[in-house]
């Protein structure tokens, strides 16, 4: 009994630093901004700021735009990352070595610099346009457009997502795949019945990271995006810094948090499912 109490106390002590950190930098700010967002500017408290999010045409466009860019970016990033990870896991040769050596590079290039690089590359008179000009190919508008934001998001998120996914794929024992092959399972079947289920958890982790990163992104959408509609991060900065409507900005921040927590719910549920399965 005493030993158990000791253990429990020890556990609590070990948990407390991360709990306090979480409380101070996540829970309290969220509660604070929720309280701020309820203020209607005339001393009263109501949901008018949230009503504005959906009633105002520009704001509604911003929300849909953010969701669209986020979902498209997530889908493309995961598609590319998963293919890359699969390729690196099940093939070998010079090309694989090269991919393995180089795919992390974007992680080490600061965001603003990469963004300006993309502007120079993809801009109206940029490198790509100049290279394609002799071939008679005219590029659609990439910069100051949602396509630019999506391209930047792909650039920023692929390395990390690939890293997560390839470590998960490396963890799948070769014996499973070989025995499946021995019993005559086709490639697609192996993928659908073994590889994907075994890496599904990590897939979800990668999705969560990409989603959170993209939905709250600022630098790339600010520099590459259109003036309207804006991503929520850019709009939040404008509402807070330029229009100086703290309550409205807080409402937008809280709404973004709600969007993220939907994904967080699935993530936590799947993690909890894993815990109970292990027991």
């Amino acid at each position, binding site marked *: 009994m005493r030993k158990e109490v000791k253990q429990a106390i020890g556990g609590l002590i070990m948990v407390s*630093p*991360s709990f306090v*950190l979480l409380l*101070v*930098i996540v829970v309290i700010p969220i509660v604070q901004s929720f309280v701020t967002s309820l203020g209607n500017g005339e001393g009263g408290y109501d949901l008018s700021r949230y009503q504005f999010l959906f009633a*105002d*045409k*520009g704001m509604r*466009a911003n929300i849909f735009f953010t969701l669209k860019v986020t979902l498209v970016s997530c889908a493309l990033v995961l598609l590319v990352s998963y293919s890359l990870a699969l390729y690196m896991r099940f093939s070998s040769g010079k090309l694989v070595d090269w991919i393995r050596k180089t795919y992390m590079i974007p992680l080490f290039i600061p965001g603003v610099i990469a963004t300006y690089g993309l502007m120079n590359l993809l*801009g*109206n*008179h940029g490198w790509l346009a100049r290279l394609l000009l002799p071939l008679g190919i005219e590029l659609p*508008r990439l910069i*100051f457009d949602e396509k630019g934001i999506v391209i930047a998001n792909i650039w920023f998120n692929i390395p990390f997502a690939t*890293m*997560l996914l390839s*470590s*998960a794929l490396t*963890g799948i024992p070769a014996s499973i795949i070989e025995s499946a092959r021995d019993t005559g399972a086709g490639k697609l079947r192996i993928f659908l019945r073994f590889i994907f289920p075994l890496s599904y958890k*990590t897939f979800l982790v990668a999705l969560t990271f990409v989603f959170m990163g993209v939905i709250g992104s600022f630098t790339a959408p*600010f*520099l590459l995006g*259109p*003036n*309207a*509609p804006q991503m929520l991060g850019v709009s939040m900065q*404008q509402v*807070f*810094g*330029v*229009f*100086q409507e703290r309550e409205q900005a807080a409402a937008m921040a809280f709404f973004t948090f709600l969007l993220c927590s939907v994904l967080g719910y699935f993530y936590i549920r799947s993690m909890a499912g894993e815990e109970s399965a292990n027991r």
Partner: protein
Amino acid sequence: MVRLKKSLTALSALTLTVAVLAACGSKNDDNASPAASDSPSNSPSGSPSAAASSAEPVQFSFYFTGSQNVKDLWDTLIPMFEKQNDKVKVKEVYIPSGAGAEPTYDRILAAKKAGKGSGDIDLYEDGINVVSQGAKDDVWAALDTSGIPNLANIDPKTMTDVSNMAVPYRSSAVVLAYDSAKVSAPPKTLSELLDWIKQNPGKFAYNDPSTGGSGSSFVTTVLYDGLPEEDIHNSDPAVMAKWDAGFGKLKELNKSVYGKGIYPKKNQGTLDLLANGEVEIIPAWSDMVLQQLGEKLLPDTVKMQQITPGFNGGPTYLMVNKLSDKKDAVNQFLDFVLSPEAQEVIVTKMNGFPGIELSNMSQAMQDKFKGVSEGFRTFNIGDLGTEINKRWQSDVAAQ
């Protein structure tokens, strides 16, 4: 996988701890300052303050805002000053434009109202709006030549304009920057400019007005075109009703500007488009154009032209917080900023018009500013600027 997660958690925890610690650090600074300013040194300028008499170097905080060139300027001037005056240290606090510089003034005012002295902001740089607002709220210290001998170099008229509450240490104006290789006869009036934009679709760009003064000046000039002259000095919300015609014009321009409605971010955004030849005319700050011509970032064929009615322009002011307890140190610094030596740096490095009278400068300097140092107007519309940005975002950008 597990290891990776662990190290990630450790890493993020570390980052967060550092961030929290850093935040705490700045908070401590904030807390320390009211205590310091509670000392009986809230004396008028000129009398020796307790802080200045000690042997320790006095450090005062200087808040300023603007584009990168403003930061570069102070990064040059402050070390020059500190080399000459080892008793004074300047702590610069740079707030990039569009990042919420306005709250700095709110902080000064809040500290005063709360009886907390200077709020650790001793010297502040801003435009005429804030100078007059602060004069109304009684937060700026009056300046005189006994504290700052070099004030005598400034045109006395500009000093009386601000009731000696601020030092106009440099000025600049928004002008039309155009590529003379492509535009032989640049527009000279606003209506000529609007016609030109419509006749040359896609060849004109102005930046998102909430991200930089040059785009904002274009928008304001269009909005106040044809309105009575006194409205540009009026911050009464009643004026907002008169903007409709102007916003109508801006909306109509949307399809004729660069990219059928693309408004780059920041003053530099449009300059980049001019530099790579995508557009031919932009509104831009004269100092940025001159600087980038000097650094060969813009083609030599780029020239400047002021229009009538003129774009926004005017001096940038330095204001001393009335409740600062380091006024002697600040005065020393201001005296240095107005010295011919520092003014030359302002002119050569930043291409601002000097704050001291142009006649004090060489003929070469006077020629450099021909045609751009005149004709601009000073808008003083207070909070209406924010309203313009808001309405521009919903009416013009998101039309």
